[in-house]
């Protein structure tokens, strides 16, 4: 019910947004079609002899079909995917904090409801991503442990603070926008459970991005203080959002193998360019400026020229020295520790119930005998 709670974004006009959603839908269609085809080398029953395992895996990848949990896969493929999916899940869970920071102070009841629903969606995304990672053999408990002990990362963007209400809009527009540009290609990822989770997530993310755009659109047409708030938020979130696409291609360590395995399908720099092109057009609709003096249309390239984010800052934040790294992890750890007695109670109660049922069955059997 909250999804249709605000102005139709089509009437606001958000260039480039619907094209991304079309891609999600086309990925979904292709996924169903690919599932119906049989792989050339393996036949319909899958791999036979052990020696054929790698061949079969390669053939599935080449045919743009999906690897499923029970299929053989190279160890590094499995390990890389667990790492990527877990980091994605952690990002959803940690990402609840910066926006959650404004739920209790949202300036209208409608905005409060939309924001609460959005943050709730993020918890849901975290849950199905952890479930996708579990299909590869890592339990959610293990992965959460890796997060709260700082041994696995989450998206660095969430280590920046939300200082005013417009930050909620900027996170929707820029951060969720960058996430969608990053994630739409993952709807075609070669690992089936991840691809399917991404299709579902991208559909919801596109709603999140629209609500962010709409918050900024309203603020930009509001009082002077509201306009200033909106511009301040965009100024602070622009470069960290650009950095979400990762280091430049020349420095990216995981890219090549991921591309070959069709986990990743476009380079960091290609995706970043796509994001800049989309935002440059949308900023003018919003009536807000992007804080980049070098931003201009390049006729020859058919793309916008832009200034790169400060990658040294990105690496500092990844290493743990962003404004909120310690706060975000401490919050997560605290919630986890505070909840331990509740989770213990849940398990203890379930065990008692199971014992009672077993006891009852035993009594019935004795009575029947």
């Amino acid at each position: 019910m909250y999804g249709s709670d605000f102005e139709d974004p089509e009437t606001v006009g958000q260039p480039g947004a619907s094209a991304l959603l079309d891609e999600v839908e086309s990925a979904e269609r292709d996924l169903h079609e690919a599932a119906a085809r049989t792989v050339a080398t393996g036949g319909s029953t899958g791999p036979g002899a052990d020696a054929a395992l790698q061949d079969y895996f390669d053939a599935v990848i080449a045919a743009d079909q999906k690897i499923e949990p029970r299929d053989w896969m190279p160890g590094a493929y499995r390990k890389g995917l667990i790492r990527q999916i877990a980091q994605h899940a952690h990002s959803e869970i940690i990402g609840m904090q910066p926006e959650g920071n404004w739920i209790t102070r949202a300036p209208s009841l409608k905005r409060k409801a939309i924001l609460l629903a959005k943050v709730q969606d993020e918890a849901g995304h975290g849950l199905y991503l952890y479930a996708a990672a579990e299909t590869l053999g890592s339990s959610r408990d293990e992965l959460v442990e890796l997060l709260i002990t700082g041994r696995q990362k989450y998206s660095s963007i969430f280590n920046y603070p939300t200082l005013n209400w417009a930050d909620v809009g900027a996170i929707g527009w820029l951060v969720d926008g960058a996430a969608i540009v990053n994630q739409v290609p993952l709807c075609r990822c070669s690992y089936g459970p991840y691809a399917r989770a991404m299709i579902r997530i991208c559909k919801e993310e596109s709603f999140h991005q629209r609500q962010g755009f709409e918050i900024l659109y309203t603020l930009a047409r509001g009082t002077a203080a509201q306009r200033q708030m909106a511009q301040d938020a965009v100024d602070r979130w622009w470069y960290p959002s650009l950095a979400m696409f990762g280091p430049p291609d020349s420095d990216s360590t995981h890219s090549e193998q991921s591309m070959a395995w069709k986990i990743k399908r476009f380079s960091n720099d290609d995706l970043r360019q796509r994001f800049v092109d989309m935002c440059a057009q949308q900023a003018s609709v919003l009536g807000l400026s992007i804080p980049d003096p070098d931003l201009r249309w390049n006729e020859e390239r058919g793309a916008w020229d832009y200034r790169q984010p400060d990658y040294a800052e990105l690496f500092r934040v990844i290493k743990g020295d962003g404004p909120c790294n310690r706060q975000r992890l401490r919050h997560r750890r605290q919630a986890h520790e505070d909840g331990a007695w509740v989770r213990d109670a849940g398990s203890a109660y379930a065990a008692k119930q199971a014992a009672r049922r077993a006891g009852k069955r035993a009594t019935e059997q004795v009575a029947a005998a």
Partner: protein
Amino acid sequence: MTTVDELLRLGDDALIAAQRLAEWCARGPEMEEDVALANIALDQLGAARLLLSYAGERAGTGTEDDLAFLRDDREFRNCLLVELPNGDFAVTIGKLLFLSVYQLARYDALVDSADDRLAAIAAKVRKESAYHVDHGSLWTVRLGDGTDESHRRMQSAVDELWPYTHELFEENDLRPTWLSTVEPVLAAATLTRPEDGWAPTGGRAGRHTEHLSYLLAEMQVLHRAHPGARW
């Protein structure tokens, strides 16, 4: 016809309960519970919006936002139970159980109200209340009949909250109905039903605990900082 005060009592209960539940966001004891508590908060917020909009129209006192953000604590008509701090998860579950059983009984009765608009709101909201009762009961039993620690915490929550339940029935005769749901849940949870005694009151007349003013300060701060702005 319903009185505006009655609409405010129902609407403010829902609004303040939503605000407290929203404080749990990203703090739940497990991720599923983050989703569930947010869901219940959204239901309460949805009900509050319907009821406050109606109250504002009836009294000519403005929109749902005028009522939520521009009234002072002495003008709020919610019961004291909902404004009490969340405490630990057991206190939150105790508040949820006691409130939702009361709300379900109220909405069940209001479905037959001569006030068509309120009857329609009640018909929608009582389905949600029924889910809240389930959730609150389930957790009360799990915590009460879980570990020694969870039992101790749940019993202490019930003891601490019980006095505040009397206020819910000052203007109706629903306490027997309420007890007929709550007592079996406490029994299933191996918890002791507290004795009746101290019965703090005042919420319905705008005399609240010290907690409400802080809650409102946080909820209203941004809205009040920008008079007349649209969001």
